[in-house]
């Protein structure tokens, strides 16, 4: 893992400040919305990275946590919980939900694990679609976190705060005993378990943190567009995007998810007019190319080539 000594923390802080100051300069809501999406998915990718990157567990069910965050926030706010309390409470609920899911899915390996994560997210999506409480297929309106003229600017800054938090957690994990245990599980779960690592417990812990961050992202997303439907926040597309962003940049690296988010959402933005509804075509092509030619992702590949480990 890359070290974070000397000039690096300062350079990173400067980069974050530069990104943040865009919120003050840019008066264009469209531009801020694009930036919001990119930074949000960088944060989500970093959250996914804990489970999919460090622990090597290919979850394609993170939409469940994203949606739980968005719906939890909307429902709690509707029950007149203060907005910021609702935001964090929704994330706690999503993490508790992850605790239940994790106990079941982490007993499974490889494709079985991935399938079970998809099945959980789909059961949640279908239940939300069919229940009255959650507004069914029609959806729920979500309160705005910010009011006033610079709503998108504030949302963009919140997304930056989320991404920075997720990044700091990734740095901590990459250098801690906890992180080494996760990587040991990724490399060889049997051996990790044989040398006395409680694999189930560490995988579960990584999922809890990941789900908490993902749910915060979901709630932010919901409040940004002020309206959620099951097909916008609980669809498998969200799970796929989180995984692709991370894989594209490099799973298990610190900068990978950030680079991946810029590439993927940038490409989606550029090709939006050419392909319109078929934007997933671009994602599909990117995935196939990465798997064939850059299995370690852009950052992973560069680190290997230039020995920046």
């Amino acid at each position: 893992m890359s070290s974070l000594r000397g000039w690096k923390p300062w350079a990173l802080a400067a980069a974050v400040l530069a990104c943040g100051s865009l919120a003050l300069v840019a008066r264009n809501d469209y531009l801020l919305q694009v930036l919001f999406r990119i930074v949000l998915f960088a944060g989500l990718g970093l959250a996914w990275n804990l489970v999919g990157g460090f622990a090597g567990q290919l979850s394609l069910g993170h939409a469940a946590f994203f949606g739980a965050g968005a719906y939890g926030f909307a429902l709690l706010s509707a029950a007149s919980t203060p907005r910021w309390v609702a935001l964090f409470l929704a994330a706690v609920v999503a993490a508790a939900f992850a605790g239940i899911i994790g106990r079941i899915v982490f007993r499974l390996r490889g494709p079985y694990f991935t399938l079970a994560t998809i099945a959980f997210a789909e059961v949640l999506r279908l239940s939300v679609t069919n229940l009255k409480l959650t507004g069914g297929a029609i959806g729920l309106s979500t309160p705005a976190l910010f009011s006033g003229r610079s709503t998108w600017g504030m949302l963009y800054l919140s997304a930056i705060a989320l991404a920075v938090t997720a990044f700091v957690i990734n740095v901590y994990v990459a250098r801690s005993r906890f992180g080494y245990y996760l990587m040991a599980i990724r490399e060889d779960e049997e051996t990790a378990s044989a040398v006395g690592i409680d694999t189930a417990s560490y995988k579960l812990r990584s999922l809890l943190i990941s789900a908490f961050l993902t749910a915060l992202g979901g709630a932010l997303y919901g409040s940004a567009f002020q309206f959620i439907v099951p097909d916008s926040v609980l669809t498998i597309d969200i799970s796929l995007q989180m995984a692709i962003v991370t894989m594209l940049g490099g799973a298990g690296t610190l900068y990978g998810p950030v680079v991946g988010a810029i590439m993927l959402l940038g490409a989606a933005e550029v090709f939006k007019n050419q392909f319109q509804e078929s934007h997933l075509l671009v994602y599909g092509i990117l995935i196939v190319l990465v798997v064939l030619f850059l299995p370690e992702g852009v950052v992973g590949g560069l680190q290997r080539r230039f020995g920046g480990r």
Partner: protein
Amino acid sequence: MIVFFQACLNGLLTGALYALIGMGLALIFGVMRIVNFAHGAFLMVGMYVSYVLFDHFGIDPYLGFIAAGLFLFLFGQLIYRFLIRPVRDRSDFMQILMTTGIALILTDGAQLIFGADYHQVNIPLVNRTLRFGAFAATAASLLSFVIATVLIAGLYLFVTRSLTGQALRAIAQNIEVAQLVGIDVTRIQGLSFCLGIALAGIAGGLLLPALYLFPSVGDDYTLKAFVMVVLGGMGSIEGAALGGLLLGVSESLTSLYLGNQWALAVDFAVFLVVLSLKPSGILGRQRT
């Protein structure tokens, strides 16, 4: 009671088509150890092949399904050669990503070519109802059922009796030993991949008269195919056929008692219960 048995009958009629889909997935998994997340997308391609033949040349879907199967067998060769073989020895993680990528390309590619509109084929067989005492079924669903049953039986005989079929099962049981006794593993794996995909295409062709066609129609079937295959024991072809029939009946009964909108949710709930209680499936044995 009549209603209950009628629902079971409907479930079995759909279930035979599901069995074809599930057997295709099981064949690929058994011989290649690759979980094909693009299975439903290939089914969708089969539906579009049959639809185009019907729409442009007036070819009946009950002939078109053969073309769909052949097309996918050949298309499968290309996919196998350029996209699947390179990841054959890579981690599950990479294989799942690869097939997911293929699924996205096929689905959104179809959307780019054919648009997001819903299509339907209108053939007289769909509207003709046959009655057997208290029970009823459309002529189209009966014909699909008969064709599917013949194909299932044929596939079963092929896998158990023919030399190629035996090679196929040998690889599924132990790939190293299969190699040692002189089986051309690469060729057999390619064959089973194409065959598995062709089965999805055939099932797509046979489902066409009964469904609305749109680019993401196959998405649910990928997940359903997994449910069948896990129900029957991953990699067991007979098990997958049984899983298909069970799934058809369970969906039909769910629609009857809880409403159609819950059918898929119940599928997944059953799937999670089976996965957590008996991951080797109903007929399967645990393999490493």
